[in-house]
Structure formats: structure tokens, C-alpha cells
């Protein structure tokens, strides 16, 4: 199957390691990958700041770019950005030129972990990481995309990895896109509490499916002079892989994607 990579601006600008790991994992499981070069950004920086007019062009560009490659799926390494693409049909419902395309885009777009777990049906990705780790669950991936389980299922089978539950898993890390620069005093207090929660686990590695949250938490860790290693889930699943460990889940009921914040949890 052919997968178009939804690279996200943050990964393009700052974190090639995440994209490389994602592509290598996807190819390991038989995907042919493509990178539509005109893509830029999902549009959250302006949309969430209330610049909806400015965001039209951003969304149009992203749709045209990602649909320019004839792929079966579009997969991105960020729950938040993927959730935004999934909301395009809602945002562009009254746009005669783009409403249908937005739906087409949303229908075949997946966040990395849900694609690996729910579409590729991977159970054990064959990875090994000898470490203790904790996982930061991003708000948008959890509540807007409605994906709560895939990362944990995949992490369960990483050899040598001991997962420690993160206290206050449900609380935002304080990133919030432009919120982190517009309301820095509030954001700092939120990220400080998150750093303290991570430190309380004494984990060696902090894992997430949203690199922007990791950048925020790690940026504060670094400023405070605290030590930790951050890894995107794709990097974990790409660690020291032994193909003989790979297994697939046989649960045909794993419906991909779906759901919004409304119906998933209490």
C-alpha cells in the first residue's frame, strides 16, 4: 500500500529524526512512502489563534499538496496535526471548491500509532529499548482524535522497556501552540507541573506521539537543567529492531480512527 507522509511543519523544521524513524517503520511493514513536497502546515497556528481567514489558504494548500500524490493513506507523526486534518471537513463545510476534497483527505488520514496498530495490525513492532519510560498523552490526540489506546498497545510489546504510569496523565503540558508564546506565564506553570510529574516517575525516557508537546516539556527540562531523553513513539518502534520478534494482532474489530472528544471518555 502507498502512504503519503504528512510531515508537519514542526518535524520539517526541527526534527528530522522523527520523520526518518516513521518512514523506516512504515517501510518495514511493507508501505511504499511518498513525500508531497508542497505541504507545509495543518493551519493550527493561525486557526486556533482566531485568524480563520488567513487559515483558508493554508488548508487549501495542505489539501492540494497531500492529495497530489495518489496514496491509499496519509500518515502523520502528530496526533494534534492529524486531528486538525480530520476537522477540515467541518472547517470547510461551506467551501464549494474544497468541501469534498477535505472529506476525501480526512477519510484516509491517520496518526502514526493508530495507523500501525489499527490499519497495519501490528502487535509487536520488533523493537527493543532497554529503559524505563513514561508516556505523555497529548490532549488533541486523546480528545479530538479520540485515540487513547494504540500507543500503549504498541509500547507493551517493546522488548526491555518498562513503562511507568505518568501521574496526571490527563493534564495538558501547557504547549497549546501559540498559547505557549501568547500566555507564557500560564504556560510555564503548566509545563513546570508536567516536568515535575515526569520527574516523579524517575523514568529515563519520555515518549509521546506529539513531538510539539515533547519539545515543550523537553525545552523546560533543559532550561531547568534536568536530565531525560525524549523519544517519539516512531523512534521507539524503530529501536534495535529484530524482525523475528514482529507479530500482528488478529483483532478484526479494531476500527481505525473515528470518534471525537465527545464520546470517548468521561
Amino acid at each position, binding site marked *: 500500500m502507498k502512504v503519503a507522509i504528512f510531515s508537519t511543519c514542526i518535524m520539517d523544521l526541527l*526534527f528530522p529524526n522523527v520523520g526518518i524513524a516513521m518512514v523506516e517503520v512504515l517501510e518495514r511493514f511493507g508501505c511504499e512512502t511518498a513525500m508531497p513536497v508542497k505541504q507545509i502546515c495543518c493551519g493550527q497556528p493561525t486557526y486556533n489563534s482566531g485568524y480563520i481567514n*488567513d487559515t483558508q489558504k493554508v488548508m487549501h494548500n495542505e489539501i492540494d499538496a497531500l492529495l497530489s500524490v495518489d496514496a491509499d493513506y496519509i500518515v502523520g507523526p502528530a496526533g494534534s496535526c492529524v486531528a486538525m486534518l480530520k476537522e477540515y471537513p467541518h472547517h470547510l463545510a461551506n467551501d464549494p471548491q474544497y468541501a469534498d476534497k477535505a472529506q476525501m483527505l480526512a477519510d484516509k488520514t491517520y496518526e502514526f500509532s493508530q495507523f500501525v496498530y489499527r490499519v497495519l495490525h501490528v502487535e509487536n513492532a520488533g523493537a527493543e529499548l532497554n529503559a524505563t519510560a513514561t508516556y505523555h498523552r497529548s490532549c488533541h490526540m486523546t480528545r479530538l482524535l479520540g485515540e487513547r489506546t494504540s500507543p500503549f498497545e504498541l509500547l507493551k510489546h517493546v522488548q526491555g522497556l518498562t513503562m511507568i504510569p505518568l501521574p496526571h496523565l490527563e493534564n495538558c503540558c501547557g504547549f497549546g501552540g501559540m498559547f505557549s508564546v501568547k500566555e507564557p506565564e500560564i504556560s510555564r506553570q503548566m509545563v513546570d507541573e508536567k516536568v515535575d510529574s515526569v520527574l516523579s516517575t524517575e523514568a529515563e525516557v519520555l515518549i509521546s506521539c506529539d513531538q510539539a508537546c515533547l519539545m515543550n516539556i523537553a525545552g523546560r527540562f533543559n532550561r531547568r537543567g534536568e536530565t531525560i531523553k525524549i523519544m517519539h513513539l516512531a523512534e521507539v518502534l524503530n529501536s534495535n529492531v529484530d524482525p523475528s520478534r514482529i507479530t500482528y494482532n488478529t483483532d478484526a474489530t479494531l476500527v481505525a480512527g473515528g470518534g471525537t472528544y465527545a464520546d470517548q471518555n468521561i
Partner: protein
Amino acid sequence: MPIKTSDQSFTTRLKESEADKFMQRAVAKAQDAQWDKRTSSREDLGNWPQWRELGEQIRQHVIRYLPDYLERFSNNVEARGGHVFFASTDEEASSYIQQIAVDLDAHHIVKSKSMVTTEIDLDKKLLELPDRTLLESDLAEFILQEDDFDEPTHIVFPTLHKNRDQIQTIFQKIGYTGSNDPQEMARFARKYLRASFLEADMGITGCNFAVAENGLINLVTNEGNADLVMAIPKTQVVVMGMERLVPTMQEAAVLDTMLARSAVGQRMTSYATFCGPAMPDEIDGPENFYVVILDNGRSNALGGQFEQVLQCIRCGACLNVCPVYRHIGGHGYGSIYPGPIGAVLSPVLRGYELFGDLPFASSLCGACSETCPVKIPLHELLIKHRAVMNDRLKLDHSFNNTVMHGIGMATGTPPMFRMALDVDHAMSGAMVKHDAPTVENFSNHNGYFIHAPGMAKGWTDSRDLPRPPKHKENFRSWFKHHQEASHD
């Protein structure tokens, strides 16, 4: 106190909130405790998503047919011998109630907890009258009153910001000599209040739900004080927001259980009462019964993009899950309606000049939308407020506004973004700190930023920022090379 609780700037309020470590700890503790209680009480009920659907349907239905239900309700109140007054402003409402106290020569007024009476600043208005006593009978509101009408900081737990020592000091002003033990202090308050109930000639309550089919007022409390406020004085005044209706007793029952579970994690509150004027065959209840139905800005939301805010049943669950409220508390918002619901509602009621900061005080984490029992998409409404301010009213004239338009341009124009990818590493050299980061895999490209200009300063004031890779090391370059290699 009117809706606005503070004359200080948002920035000043944030600083004060951060300095108030007791408040922050208290809020965090309350949030954590409520998280468990609320979740388990909703799980006990079962089918919570379906209950939410039902709650949303009920509230949306009522708002769609609001004029009809208001008419039906007021007709039924009058059929029972009660009086209904429609107040379009806070001033109209409080003056009307003041006049009732004058006309009926009522001198001893007791109240039960009501956000809407706080909204219209009713206590002060009544105390302007000569020879009147007024007592807030909800324990927390009583504490606020005795502390010179301190601002409430939560819509369900108004004294969340006060500790037991502070309360002890407040009570000492009215003759308390005991310890800071909460039970002992509550016992003192109970005794103190009981005397006032017995001499009261006018009671004022809020209204959780008003039942259109029979004109009854539904109140839920845990202290039972509202029941005394209704039962003892000859005159009862009910103040309600105009959206607070339910069609029948059935919908009241649905919403009561959702309210109790969402607000305090209980299956039902200790008291759930339906009241109206005393009927000829009833031995107690008010002889004079007045209902004041308040608009005060609510109709701004009717028929517009913020209409869903009127679905709110004031459970406060969104405050209890909000990571921003967790740090800035009620004081930070500067509105009697704080938290996510307050950040949506306050600008609807009073405009952006007073409350334009609030919609930006959210990371849009969506915890509020997720917990709301009547499915108000709170974080989406916050974005809509931002859009009204930025897209429509163009209120932001700062440099940041220009930067945001620039970001819109750069993220929508492929050649501009390619240029950014090309130059970013080289351009950044002078500002980079070259020490090894303490966080592994955070900044893998020879240094990181500790200072950044413009809007990014907000980031680097408290966080380091990774340095971008060289062009040939970025993801796109890698991918191109990778693809060429695999095709060879």
C-alpha cells in the same frame, strides 16, 4: 458584586494568582479529588455518553423554543398566585427586588447560594435600604459575606481559595472563639444562621431549573439551607437566568442527576426540592412568591454562534478539569464566572473590552468540552471568540497581529516555507548556545536557543528551543536521498 470582580489588569491578576501558592494547592487538590468522584459517579450511572446526548438535546430544545417555554412557565407561576418579572438588565432586576422589600416592608432577608444574584450585585442593593439585615445562608457564601463580600472563585465551591485559618479569623469577627476545626466552625455557622432563619421575612434563592409545565422552581443543595429560605419567610424571591427552563419534571430529573454527578460527584444532592407559592392545602411555603427572570446579556447569544453557551447547567465540571484554572484560579479570570465556561460566557454577557483576554487564556486542550455534561464545545467557542476579535473586529493592533498574518502567509505558500527550511540553521548561528543539552535527543544540531526575538521570546523566557538542522540534514533532504537510493 457584578460580573467583573477586579479592576486589575489580566497580567497583574496572573502574577497575584501565581504568588498565591495556597490557592494553587487547594485548586489542584480539589480538582484531583473531584476527578475521581465525578468519574466514578458517572460510571455508576452507566451509559454516560448517551446521558450527555440526552442532556444536550434537552438544553438545545429548550433554547430553541425559549419564548414558548418562558410564556408557559410564567403563566403557570401566575396561575399558582405567583408574580413574574422579566428584567433585561442587572439594574432592573435588583431595583425590582429592592422595591419588593420596600413594598412588603421586609427587613430580615436570607439568601441561598445563587450565582445570578451575585451577577446582579443584589446583596449590596438590598443593604442600601435602611434597617435591613441580609444573610447569605450557604456556608461558603456566608464566609464570603463575612469577609466583606470577598469575590467567589468557583461557581460551585466559592471559597476554594480560603483555608481553615483564614475562615477562623473571619468567624472571629462575629464572635467565634473556637478552633480551626472545620466541623466546629460549621457548627458555629449553623447556629448563627439558624437564628436568622427564624426571624426572616424575605427569602431569596436562585434556581437550578424552572419547570415550564407547572411553574415550579427546582433547587438542589447539600446544606438544606435553600429549603429553609423557601419554607420560613412569608415572601420568596427567585432569581433565574432566562435560559434555566426545563419542559417537564422528567427533564428536571434527568438534569438533576447529571448536575449532581458533574458538580460534586454525588448520585444526588442531599436536597432536591421543587417549590412554588404555598397552595391553600399546604401548611408551609411562601405567601408572596416572585420570580425574576433575567436576561442581562444572555440574549446576545441567542441565535448566534455562541448560543450553545446557554446550554450550561452551572455544574462547574469544566473548572474542575481545566489546567489553566488549576494555576490561575478564579481570581485570575476576574469574573464571577471563571474557568472555561467563564471565558466563553463573560465576553458574551459583557463584551471584549472587559473580558477579551479570557478566550486566549486556554491551551485548547479540550478537557472542558470532554467533561461538559451537556456537550457545550467550550474550546471551539473559545476559538470563535478569538476569531470575532481578530478576524471580524480586528482588535489586535500589536506587532503580534502582523506576525500572525505573516505566519498565515508562510504556512500557506510553499516557496516561502521552502525558503524558511533553507535558511533557518545558518541564520540562527549567532543566537545559539553551544553547551550540550541536558535533555537527550532534544536538539541534535549543534546547540539550542536560550533567547529568541519577537513572539518566540514568550517561549524562550522559560524554555529552550531546539536549533533547526542544516538544510542537507532536514527531513525532506533525507527523504529525497532515501527515495533516490531505493529507486537505484
